[in-house]
C-alpha cells in the first residue's frame, strides 16, 4: 500500500494483564491532520509510545512509509532454521527499530509534559533537534574539522528557521524553561519539527493553554500540514480537535471503536456511549 504513511496491523501492547492497546489497525493517510481521541485511559498515549518506539509491541506490526519497523537482528541469520522452529532458543529473532532510529526515519514526537532541556537556551534546544540531520561525531567536533564547521552553520541556520516559524526568534538566548508554558509548548513543537520529520506526533499539545494560545497552536498545526507533514495528535480539547482534524480515530479501552470525519464521529453511537457512559453490555 503506497497510499498510507503509517499503518499498524494488529498492534497490541499488554502490561502484564492490562491490555493498553488491543489489536489496533490504523491507516494514516499522508498530508492529513489525524486526531486520536478517547476517554482517559483509552490507550492513546500508549499507542503514541508504540509508534514512537518507546514501547516494544506485544504483537503486531507498524509500517512506516511502506517499510516495517520490525527487522531481524544481525545474529538471526547465523542461527540455523531448525533451531528457530524449536522455540527452545530464548533469543529475540525480531527487533523493533528503537526510538532514535525512528526519528531518523522521519517520525517526530512531542510530549504531554513539554520535556524541554532546562540546561540549554531556546536556540540550543532546537539545534539539538537537528541531531539526526547532521552527522559529524566526536572526532570532527574535537578537532573542529571543516566538515564540523559547515554542518554547524547549517544547524544554526535551520534552527533559526524553525524558531522563527513558531515566532520565538527574539527569545533565542533565553533559558528554555524561563518561557511561559504556551511558548514552551510551541518550542517543543519547533524542536520536534527541527528533526525534519515526515510524520509528527503531538501528545496533548493544547493541554494547559489559554484560548489565545490554542488559536496560535491550531494555526501552527495547520501550517505544519501545509509543509506536507502528516500530523497525528492526541487531544482532549474537542473544539480544537473538531476545528483542525480532518480524520478522527476514537479509542476506548485500547480498542479502536470508530473513525471518520468530525461529523461522522460525532454521530457515532459507540463514541457517544464511550464518552457519556453506557448501560452494562448484557443489559
Amino acid at each position, binding site marked *: 500500500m503506497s497510499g498510507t504513511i503509517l499503518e499498524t496491523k494488529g498492534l497490541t501492547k499488554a502490561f502484564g494483564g492490562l491490555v493498553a492497546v488491543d489489536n489496533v489497525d490504523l491507516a494514516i493517510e499522508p498530508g492529513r491532520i489525524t486526531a486520536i481521541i478517547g476517554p482517559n485511559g483509552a490507550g492513546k498515549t500508549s499507542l503514541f509510545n508504540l509508534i*514512537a518506539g*518507546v514501547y516494544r509491541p506485544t504483537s503486531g506490526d507498524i509500517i512506516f512509509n511502506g517499510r516495517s519497523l520490525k527487522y531481524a537482528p544481525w545474529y538471526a541469520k547465523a542461527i540455523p532454521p531448525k533451531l528457530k522452529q524449536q522455540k527452545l532458543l530464548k533469543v529475540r529473532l525480531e527487533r523493533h527499530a*528503537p*526510538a*532514535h*532510529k525512528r*526519528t*531518523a526515519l522521519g517520525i*517526530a*514526537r512531542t*510530549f504531554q509534559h513539554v*520535556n*524541554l*532541556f*532546562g*540546561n*540549554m537556551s531556546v536556540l*540550543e534546544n532546537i*539545534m*539539538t*533537534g*537537528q*541531531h*539526526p540531520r*547532521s552527522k*559529524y*561525531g*566526536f572526532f570532527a*567536533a*574535537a*578537532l*573542529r574539522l571543516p566538515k*564540523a564547521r559547515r*554542518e*554547524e552553520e547549517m*544547524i544554526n541556520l535551520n534552527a533559526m528557521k524553525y524558531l522563527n516559524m513558531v515566532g520565538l526568534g527574539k527569545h533565542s538566548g533565553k533559558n528554555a524553561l524561563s518561557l511561559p508554558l504556551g511558548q514552551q509548548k510551541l518550542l517543543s513543537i519547533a*524542536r*520536534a519539527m*527541527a*528533526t525534519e520529520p515526515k510524520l509528527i506526533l503531538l501528545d496533548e499539545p493544547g493541554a494547559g493553554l489559554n484560548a489565545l494560545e490554542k488559536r496560535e497552536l491550531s494555526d501552527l498545526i495547520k501550517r505544519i500540514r501545509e509543509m506536507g507533514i502528516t500530523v497525528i495528535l492526541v487531544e482532549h480539547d474537542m473544539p480544537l480537535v473538531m476545528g483542525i482534524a480532518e480524520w478522527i480515530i476514537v479509542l476506548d479501552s485500547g480498542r479502536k471503536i470508530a473513525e471518520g470525519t468530525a461529523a461522522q464521529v460525532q454521530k457515532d453511537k459507540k463514541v457517544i456511549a464511550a464518552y457519556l457512559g453506557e448501560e452494562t453490555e448484557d443489559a
Partner: protein
Amino acid sequence: MMPGWVKSKWRYFVVAALMIFLVLLPFKWFLGQYTSIMIFIGISTMITVGLCLLMGYTGQVSLGQAAYYGLGAYFSAVLSKTYGWNPWLAMVIAAIATGSFAYIIGYPIFRLRGNYLAMATLGIGLIMWVLFNQLSQYTGGPDGMSGIPYLSIGGFAFDTNFKRYFLVWFFCLAILFLSQNIVRSRTGRALRAIHGNEAAAQSLGINVTQFKVKIFVLSSVYASLAGSLFAHHLRHVSPQSFDFLASVKLVVMAVIGGLASVWGAIFGAGTTRLLSDKLLLGFNQFPQLDIIIYGLILMLVMIFTPEGLFIALKSGIKWLQLNWRHLPEIMRTQGKELPHRIKDRLTRLVPARWWRKAEP
C-alpha cells in the same frame, strides 16, 4: 567601557594570559618551587576534565575514576619496565586497553541510572584496587613497582621536573582544547540533552546509550593518559594512589571546578591539590585531615553553589562587570538585606526545629 573588540575577544586574552603564566611558571626566577606540584595539578586536571564531561555534561556519575587512572599507570609501568617496551608505545597501548575495557563494561553499566550507576562505578573502582594489590607478580603488590623509565623523544629524555612540566601541560592543554570543542558542538549538545531529559533526547534521534558509553570511554582514556604520565613522572606506582579516596578526590576536584565547565577543571584540580600538598603539610600528626576538609568542601559547595565554585565565581565577576557602577546604590538599597540573606542560607544547614520555636 572596554572597546567592543576587546569585549568580544576577552576569552582569547584570558587564555593568552594563562598560557604565558603557565610557560613562565617553572622558571626559577618565577614560581620554580611549584613545578613539581604543578605537574600533579596537570595530571589531575586531565582526569577532572573527563569527569566533567561525564558528570557535568552528560549527568552520569562515576565514583571509580581512579580505576582507569590506575589502569593507565599500571599498563604503562608493566609494559615499559617488565617487558621493555618503548614508553610512548606503552602509553598508547595503555590508553587503547583502558578505553576498550571501559567500552566493554560501559554497555551493561549504563543500563543503570542514578544511585545504582554510582554504586556500580564504585564497585569497579574497588575491584581494580584489589587487583592492583593482589596481582603481585605483575604489579608488585601493595609496595608497587619502581624503576619505570622516563619518557624520551630521540635522545631527549624527560628526566627533570622542568622538562616533564612542559610535557604534562602540553597533554593537559591539548585535552582541554579538544574537550572544549566537543562541548560546543553537536556532540556536546547531545550530551547535555541526555543530562536534561533522556526521553526527549531519544525522541530527537540521539542514541542515548551509545553516547553515554562513548563519553565514558573518552573520560577513561583521559584518565589512562594521565595515569601513564604519572607513572613515567614518579617512576613508581603503588595501589594507594588509585584507591577509593583518590576517586573521591577527583570528584571533589570536578565539583569545585564546576561540573559543567571544562576550564574549571584546572581551578578545581589546582585548589584541591594545593590544599592537600601545601597548606596541610604542617599537620603531620593528622595525616588524613585533607579528606575531612574535602568532605566539608563537598558539603558546603553542594549547599551554597551547587553549580560549582568556579562557575559561581565566574557569574559573580560577570555580575560585577554589569553592575559595578551601581554598586553604591545597590549597597544602599539592598545592603540591609544582605545579612538576612546570609542568615537564610546558613539556617538551611540545620533542621528548622532547631532555630524556629515549635508551634504551641
